[in-house]
């Protein structure tokens, strides 16, 4: 395929799934808006008023980045995991792309881009909801956007890989329920790792989402538990590793071709 033809194919994949995401907005955007509003209400307004300041900001401002990331991670992941799984397992419409000249990297890039669209979209919705509960502090908007996009990309790639390997609905629900959610909750959404006992503080540093949440939080409050470059480095390394894995699986057809 020429570069232009690859662009057309990429655009087709993105356009089709983006339309689907928008068409079913009560399923794609509303749940995160409602859930995050409850988090802000309970942990921010009710409990936060008794906790006081964390890392120099109000508790609700401290938890906003983590709650945004919670929504971004789960939505970006589930978007690609569900699309890949249902299109290969039920409608088998994934064959429409597999029989075409679309190269594997274009296929991965297309589906991951729609995961980014959904992840960033949901992240922005949750940020807007947070405005109902607090005045947002923003230290560096560029870092916020960078972490939003890269985190969405990372978990879209994760969802892609999971969707390729899954051979039942359990296969695409196990990772979000038993891996992602615990990692996000234990990654410092509601607390600073510096406030933990030394053992648990050290354990937390083995959690990749800890670095993501901290880098994202740095964009808001200008301070974090780990240096910004370390967070960015961990995130970029993971994106690269997941991208290569997704591309390799697609090229070999593992889980997609029989």
């Amino acid at each position, binding site marked *: 395929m020429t570069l232009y033809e690859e662009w057309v194919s990429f655009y087709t994949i993105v356009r089709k799934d983006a339309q689907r995401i928008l068409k079913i907005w009560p399923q794609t955007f509303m749940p995160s808006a409602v859930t995050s509003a409850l988090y802000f209400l309970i942990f921010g307004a009710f409990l936060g008023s008794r906790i006081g300041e964390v890392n120099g900001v109000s508790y609700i401002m401290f938890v906003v980045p983590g709650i945004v990331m919670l929504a971004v991670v789960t939505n970006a992941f589930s978007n690609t995991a569900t699309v890949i799984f249902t299109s290969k397992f039920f409608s088998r419409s994934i064959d429409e792309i597999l029989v075409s*000249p679309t190269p594997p990297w274009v296929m991965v890039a297309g589906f991951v881009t729609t995961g980014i669209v959904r992840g960033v979209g949901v992240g922005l919705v949750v940020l807007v909801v947070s405005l109902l509960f607090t005045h947002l502090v923003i230290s560096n908007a560029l870092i916020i956007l960078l972490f939003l996009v890269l985190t969405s990309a990372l978990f879209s790639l994760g969802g892609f890989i999971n969707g390729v390997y899954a051979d039942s609905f359990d296969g695409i629900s196990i990772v979000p329920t038993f891996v992602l959610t615990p990692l996000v909750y234990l990654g410092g959404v509601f607390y600073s790792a510096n406030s933990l006992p030394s053992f648990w503080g050290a354990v937390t540093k083995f959690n990749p989402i800890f670095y993501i949440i901290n880098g994202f939080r740095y964009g808001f409050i200008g301070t974090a538990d780990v240096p910004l470059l370390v967070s960015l480095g961990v995130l970029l390394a993971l994106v690269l590793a997941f991208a290569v894995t997704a591309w390799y699986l697609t090229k070999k057809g593992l889980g997609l071709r029989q």
Partner: protein
Amino acid sequence: MSTSALTLRNLEKTYADGTRALNDVSLEIPIGDFFALLGPNGAGKTTLIGIVTGVVNKTGGSAHVFGTDIDTAPSTARRHVGVVPQNVNINIFEKVIDIVVNQAGYYGIARSVALPRAVQILKDLGLYEKRSVEARALSGGMLRRLMIARALIHEPKFLILDEPTAGVDVDLRRSMWDYLTGLTKQGVTILLTTHYLEEAEQLCKHVAIINDGVIITKGTMAEVLALHDGSTPRDGYTGGRLEEVFLQLTHDKS
């Protein structure tokens, strides 16, 4: 330049569970042919088609489409092929026109080019009035025609039809055959699998019969029909001549 639309050499496929679906299959389909690949259920027809179209990974042998190796230049090979699969593999929540135009997109064809082309194909196949409805509102026969429209949108030189008339009524089948025969007159090569052997007998120039993953006979339609041993048919219903040859070759008559 290759004179064959499809060349298979010693093709092998063994699935992960150990099932050997294809065993040393070699086949050649001349350009412009209307070729029938016949066989009982589970003989390996769909696996063979899956390998050629890229949805099944082969475990041995080689396949060339218009001289292009599907392993070394898959994108070029796939550009030549359109496929109508046996099972409906459509996202039923998509609109008819979008299904066809999006398929063009996967071949790198811009929407501005694909849209008028899709309109024409949908008109030709009697689906134009349904262009704005979701595929779930279509009947079984309409879904089959939609899959043909989708397979033709990138103007392939080689069309593969895996039981395209399964569950389609007589009127519709006849109009589909008229349309597809018209395509062969325009130079499109067609590979057909079907269980309606009288249709294959009438439409196809060449035929191969596959059983248990092995090609048991191949040749021109006249050559294969000549294999009929003239034995008295079994009691009851008797089919056409090709059907009798098919049963003769695929059944253990001992």
